[in-house]
C-alpha cells in the first residue's frame, strides 16, 4: 500500500510506486561454470515510492551506491523498472505503447546530466545540439524557425545566439551546463530530471546555474527531480527531499521540516557530517563505518551496522514506511519511539 503524501491542493505530476530495479552483475557464464561462482544480483533500487507535486523540486540525496542516479534514469526511461511503476500524470509510463504516444511522452520529460564534458557531442555544433529535440519531434518547420527558437533558448540560459556556431570544447564547464539546459528545454518539457547538474562545477559557477534553474522553474512552471549528494545545495533548491541508502528510501518529506527534524538516524548522520562552514562549533555525533557494498547489503535494515540505535529487530527485519507529518520514514527505532527527538537550529550563526 502506498501512502501518497501530496500536499493539499497540489497535484502529483510524477509518482514512483514501489519502484525497483535489479542489475545482473554476475560473472560471465564460463566463469560461473568453471569457478563455481554464484549469480550476483545488484538491487540498485528497492521498493521506492514518492510523489512529486507539479511545479515543485523534489531532491533525492544520498551517498555513492544509494541508487539515486538509477532512480533518475528509471524516471526518464533510460532503464526499465524490474518492479513497480512510474506514473506521469496518473498514467503508467510503461503502459504507453506506439511510437507516437511514446514520443509525445518523451517530449514532456527531459534530463540534465552531471558531466558537462561528456553530455554534449564534441563533434556537433551547439546550435545543432540544442535543435536536436526540436527536429526529432518536428516541433517547428523550416530552418529559420528552428534557428530562431535555438537563439531564443540560448538567450534564456544566459548565452549569446552567436554561440550556436561554436563547438562544445570552446566553452567552460558552467557554459556547457547552460547548453545542456537549453537542449533540455527545447522540447518545452514540463518535468526535468537533473542528475547532479552542479557537482562537477566550481562553487561560484554552481551558484550561477542554481540561480538560473530556479528562475527557469518560476518562469516556465517546471517541475524538477534533483539528484545530489550535496545537502547544502539540496537545502537551497528543494521543496521536498528524499534520503536514500543502499537502494532504499529511508526518509522523505518537506525540505525545511526534514532538515529541522530529521528522523532517520542516517539522515541525522548525514546532516552532522556536513562541514561546519559557519564555524558554529556545533556538537556532532561521530560518524561510523563505511557504506557497504551494494551487492551484498546487510540483512534487515541496511543501515544497522552503522546505526547507534540498532536492535535485534533491525538486524532481522527491514523496516516499512511510516507516514510522518510531511512525508515518510522507514525506521524501527522511530516506530518504537526509541529515538530522541532532534531539533536542529536552522538559524545562521551570528558573526
Amino acid at each position, binding site marked *: 500500500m502506498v501512502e501518497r503524501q501530496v500536499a493539499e491542493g497540489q497535484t502529483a505530476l510524477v509518482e514512483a510506486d514501489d519502484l525497483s530495479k535489479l542489475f545482473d552483475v554476475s560473472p560471465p557464464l564460463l566463469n560461473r561454470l568453471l569457478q563455481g561462482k554464484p549469480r550476483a544480483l545488484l538491487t540498485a533500487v528497492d521498493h521506492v515510492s514518492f510523489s512529486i507535486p507539479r511545479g515543485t523540486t523534489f531532491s533525492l540525496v544520498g551517498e555513492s551506491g544509494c541508487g539515486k542516479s538509477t532512480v533518475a*534514469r528509471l524516471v*526518464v*526511461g*533510460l532503464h526499465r523498472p524490474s518492479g513497480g511503476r512510474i506514473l506521469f500524470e496518473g498514467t503508467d509510463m510503461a503502459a504507453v505503447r506506439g511510437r507516437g504516444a*511514446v*514520443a509525445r511522452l*518523451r*517530449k514532456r*520529460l*527531459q*534530463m540534465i*546530466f*552531471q*558531466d558537462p564534458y*561528456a*553530455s*554534449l*557531442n*564534441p*563533434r*556537433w555544433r551547439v546550435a545543432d545540439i540544442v535543435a*536536436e*529535440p526540436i527536429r*526529432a*519531434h518536428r516541433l517547428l518547420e523550416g*530552418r529559420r524557425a528552428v534557428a530562431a527558437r535555438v537563439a531564443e533558448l540560448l538567450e534564456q540560459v544566459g548565452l549569446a545566439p552567436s554561440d550556436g*556556431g561554436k563547438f562544445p570544447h570552446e566553452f567552460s564547464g558552467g557554459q556547457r551546463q547552460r547548453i*545542456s539546459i537549453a*537542449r533540455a528545454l527545447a*522540447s518545452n518539457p514540463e518535468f526535468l530530471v537533473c542528475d547532479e547538474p552542479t557537482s562537477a562545477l566550481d562553487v561560484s559557477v554552481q551558484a550561477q546555474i542554481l540561480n538560473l534553474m530556479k528562475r527557469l522553474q518560476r518562469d516556465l512552471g517546471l517541475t524538477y527531480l534533483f539528484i545530489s549528494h550535496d545537502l547544502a545545495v539540496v537545502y537551497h533548491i528543494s521543496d521536498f527531499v528524499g534520503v536514500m541508502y543502499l537502494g532504499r528510501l529511508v526518509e522523505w518529506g518537506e525540505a525545511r521540516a526534514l532538515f529541522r527534524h530529521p528522523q532517520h538516524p542516517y539522515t541525522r548522520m548525514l546532516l552532522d557530517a556536513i562541514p561546519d562552514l559557519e564555524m558554529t562549533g556545533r556538537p556532532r555525533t561521530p560518524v561510523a563505518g563505511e557504506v557497504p557494498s551494494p551487492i551484498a547489503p546487510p540483512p534487515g535494515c541496511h543501515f544497522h551496522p552503522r546505526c547507534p540505535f540498532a536492535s535485534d529487530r533491525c538486524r532481522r527485519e527491514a523496516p516499512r514506511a511510516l507516514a510522518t507529518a510531511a512525508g515518510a520514514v522507514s525506521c524501527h527505532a522511530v516506530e518504537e519511539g526509541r529515538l530522541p527527538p532532534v531539533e536542529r537550529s536552522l538559524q545562521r550563526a551570528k558573526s
Partner: protein
Amino acid sequence: MALDQSGRQAGTAAATGMTARFADSLRRFFDGDIWYSFTHSPVAMISALVTVVFVGAALFAPLVAPYNPFDLSTVDLLDSELPPVWQDGGDPRFLLGTDAQGRDILSTMIYGARISLGVGFASVALAMVLGVALGLLSGYLGGIVDAVIMRIADVQLTFPAILIALLIDGLSRSVLPRDLHAQIWFYVLVLAIGLSFWVQYARTVRGSVLVERGKEYVQAARVIGIPPLLIMLRHVLPNVMGPVLVIATINLAIAIITEATLSFLGIGVPLTSPSLGTLVRVGNDFLFSGSWWITIFPGAALAVLVLAVNLLGDWLRDALNPKLRG
C-alpha cells in the same frame, strides 16, 4: 514573383551559409593541432608527398607514363631487355630500361602502381565499411548480436589474413567459369583482401562504441527519443572514426603488400593487368641473367610506397592520440 525571389534569397543564403561553414571548417583545420603536428614532422610531410606522387601517377597514368605498355603498337621486341639510361647500352627513350617484351619499365611501373593502389584502396574501403558497420552494431546493440559477430571475428582471427585471401581467391577460381573470372577478377581480389581485414576495424570500433555509449551525450539522445540507428550514425560514428583512419592507413600498406604477395604467387591479378607484385615476379626470372632492372625497380617502388604509407599511418596515430599531445 515574391516567392521566387525569396526562394532564391533563401537559396543564396543557404549557399553562402554553407560556403561560410566550409571556409570556417577549413580554417579550424589549419589552426588545429593535427595540421601543426603535420607541418612540424618532416617524416609525415615526406611520406605524404611520396604517397601523393604515387597516387597522382596512378590516377593520371595515361598522361604521366611515357608509353602505354598495353598498346602493342608501341612495343617492339627489338627493344627488349635494354638497361637503364645511365648504363652502357641504355636508351634515353626508356629511362629505366625495358623488359623481355620491350615494354618500358617506367611505364609498366606506373600502370602497375595503378593496379596495386586500386586494389589496395578498394579492399581497404570494403574492409572499413564492413568492419565499422559490424563494430557499430556489435558495440551499440550488444547482447546476442555482439556475441555472434565477435565469435565470427575470433574464428577468423585464428587464420592469417593471407590464408583467408588465398582461400577466397582460390575458391572463386575453381567455382567460377574461366571467362567470368577473367572479367570480375578485380572484384574477387578486392573481396578476398577486404574480407580478410574487417576484423580489426570491427574490434576497434566496438571498443570505442562501448566507451561512447556510456557517455552522457548518447544518453541524452536516448532521452530525447532519437531511434538507436540514428544515434549510432549521427552521434557515435563521428566520435569513433579517429582510430579507424589510423587503421585504414596502415591497412592500406598491408593490403598493397598482400595483393603483391598474391600476385607474386601467381594467383592475384591476371598477367594482362600486371600490378607491381606481378612485375616483381615476372622480372624475378631475369634477375640472375643480368637484367636486374626488370625486377628491382618495381620492387623498390613497392617498398617505397608501402614504407611511405606506413610512416604516414604512424604519424597519424600519434597525432590523433590526445595523451601524446604536448
